[in-house]
């Protein structure tokens, strides 16, 4: 019930409020992106999530663009039926085992090294900067016709240990890694 309530709230944000003030739009986009992270997990299986896994780990690398929505949403919400732990780091070196790694746009310089670092691991990489997907981030948010969308780097998604549902792929714009 509670979840529905939240959804309701989210939808209210996403459909009505978000449409006419820029500031509000920004806020609303941050909330949407925070919510979508959970949505992505519905279509993705992590091989390292087992019965002994106690928490679902989200690591935000670099500048936090979620305006605190992430903490607020996942304070109550569970992902994969587990409580969510959110860690904010600023250096690629700090990257440890997590389930979702959000790479901020200010990590552009380190992107390839970050990708290389996590590529072999069952970590879903998410970003919000155009061109990031082409460089190896699995899911990248972008705006199209004033509407939030996402693109998926199919090459990286496929090469990773993650099992990504084709239904997610259908919803995304598919990009391939630049060779």
């Amino acid at each position, binding site marked *: 019930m509670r979840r529905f309530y939240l*959804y309701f709230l989210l939808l209210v944000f996403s459909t009505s409020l978000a449409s006419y003030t820029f500031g509000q739009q920004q806020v609303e986009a941050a909330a949407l992106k925070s919510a979508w992270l959970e949505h992505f997990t*519905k*279509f993705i299986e992590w091989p390292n999530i087992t019965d002994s896994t106690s928490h679902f780990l989200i690591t935000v690398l670099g500048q936090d663009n979620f305006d605190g929505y992430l903490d607020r949403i996942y304070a109550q919400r569970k992902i994969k039926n587990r409580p969510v732990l959110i860690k904010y780091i600023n250096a690629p070196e700090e990257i440890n085992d997590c389930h979702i790694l959000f790479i901020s746009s200010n990590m552009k310089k380190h992107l390839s090294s970050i990708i290389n670092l996590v590529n072999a691991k069952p970590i879903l990489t998410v970003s919000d900067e155009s061109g990031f997907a082409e460089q190896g981030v699995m899911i990248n948010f972008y705006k199209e016709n004033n509407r939030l969308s996402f693109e998926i780097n199919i090459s990286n998604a496929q090469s990773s240990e993650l099992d990504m549902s084709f239904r997610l792929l*259908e*919803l995304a714009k598919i990009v391939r890694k630049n060779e």
Partner: protein
Amino acid sequence: MKTIRNLSISTKLTLIILLVTFFALLSGLILYMISAVNQQKNDFTNSMVVNANLIGEYSIGPIMFDDKRGGTDILNKLKGIPEIQTAYIFDSTGNIFSSYNTDKVKVNGFPAFSKDESVAFGSSVMEIYEPITLAGEYYGTIYLNVSTNVLESKIKEQFLLLVGVSAGILLLSWVFAHRIQVLISKPLLRLTDAAKRVSADNDYSVRVNKKNNDEIGILYDQFNEMVKQIESRQAQQKANEAAIKKSVEKYRNLYENSQVGIYRTDVETGRLLEANDAAYRILGLKHGSKIEMSKLYINSNERSKIKSIALENGYIDNYEVKLKRPDNKVIWVSISGKLFDNNQYFEGVIHDITESKENFINLKKANFELDSFVYHASHDLRSPLLSILGLVNLSKYETDPEKLHEFMAMIKKSIQKLDALIADLLVLSRDNRIDDAIQTIDVEKQVKECISNYDFLKGFSKIDITVNVEADYTFVSDLTRLTIILNNLLSNAIKYHRKDIANPFINVSVVIKERTCEIIVEDNGEGISKDDLPKIFDMFYRATQNSEGSGLGLYIVKNVIDKLDGSIKIESKEGEGTRSIIILPNHASSHKLIPSKTTIN
């Protein structure tokens, strides 16, 4: 039901087979259609639910990421399923997320929102609500509006196909039934034909040829056996009938051709029930007459007499009864017979015994006559002999020659009398025994000769004798007998003329006709008294004491005339005269005939 019953067996069998096939097909068809319809409906529903599920699965992402175009894209994939007319994706709040409808269908309004899974059928339409869930979380609902026209037409098509196949099977089974029923109906029809032939032509030599060993085969055997028995019985019956017919004919002939009358009467009424020809002839009745027998009896109480005898003994033996027939002929019959059927009927034989009865009466008369003759003859023969004996005894003691001479004369007279009597007796005997040949007679000559024979008699010369003959035809008869008649009549007329009158006469008149000869002798002599007149033809009857005759004269005349089939009538008045009329048959026209009256014994 009666029309069905009157159908031929082959039609009935065909009908039965067809009916069974029809109902088997019908029940199969119905069962199959029910299960097929259910199956198809289930399949159809299931496939549509699966479609809804799939669409729901695919819609989760678009709903999650608010990708309405993606939702529309997914719904547009439904174009491949033409039965789905409209489809909606509701989000979890009941708002329409995406919609789809085929070009063909116009959608009026929107379907109601429901979170619950349901399948509902409307008219040619199925509505499916399928919730969209993922990992137990509700995201929205898929609504499908599916046309069931295809399903219905499919079912209809299938139904028509099945009906067609059934009709085909029915047709085939008709053909088979038609072939198969022959197995049963043909032997039966053969039997029917045989039975028809037997009854129509009475031909019991008909046999049916057995081919199977089933119940019909047994029926054939029984039929053959039955017909065989009938045939042999019929042959037996024919033989019996022929024997009976022969026997009946034999007895009928015996009955009908019998000279003895056989008849049958009802005891209660005395009515004649049936009789053979002889009985009718004897009784003088028309053939088939049902007269009451008692009406024929002359003595009316004979019936009760016969009845009481019959009831007492149970039979009648030679009961003689005198009858008067309807033609007034009086006859004597003898009846013998028995009672039958609890004394209801009398069956008897009847003899006409009239002749023997007459013969018996004649015999009695003859016997009486013989007695009387012996008495009179012995008396008349004895009396001259006794007078002669007396005269002889007297003459022993008489010496006077005169007296003796007188005695002798008296003896002579007695002897002459005796001789005359014996002569008469000879004539009589002769008349009874001998038939002389007939010849042409000159009656006038005979009369005159006869008269001249008596000219010696006393007073002859005084009598005026006239003879008148009218002879238009010749007269043929027995001369001897005619002479006897003439002699007796003329001698009587001469002998008994009256001596005291002055003109005694005798008139003899003869008229000869073609078939008769009438002789009338008339005199004015003594005549005969009224008392004597009926007895004058009796034997030995003498009318007068002073008669010298034998008393046989007129008896002989009567006998002779009877012999000649003639008739005599004597009219007389005492003291006035006598007239004798004799009519004799003239045999001139049938010359060769001899009067044929046999001698009475």
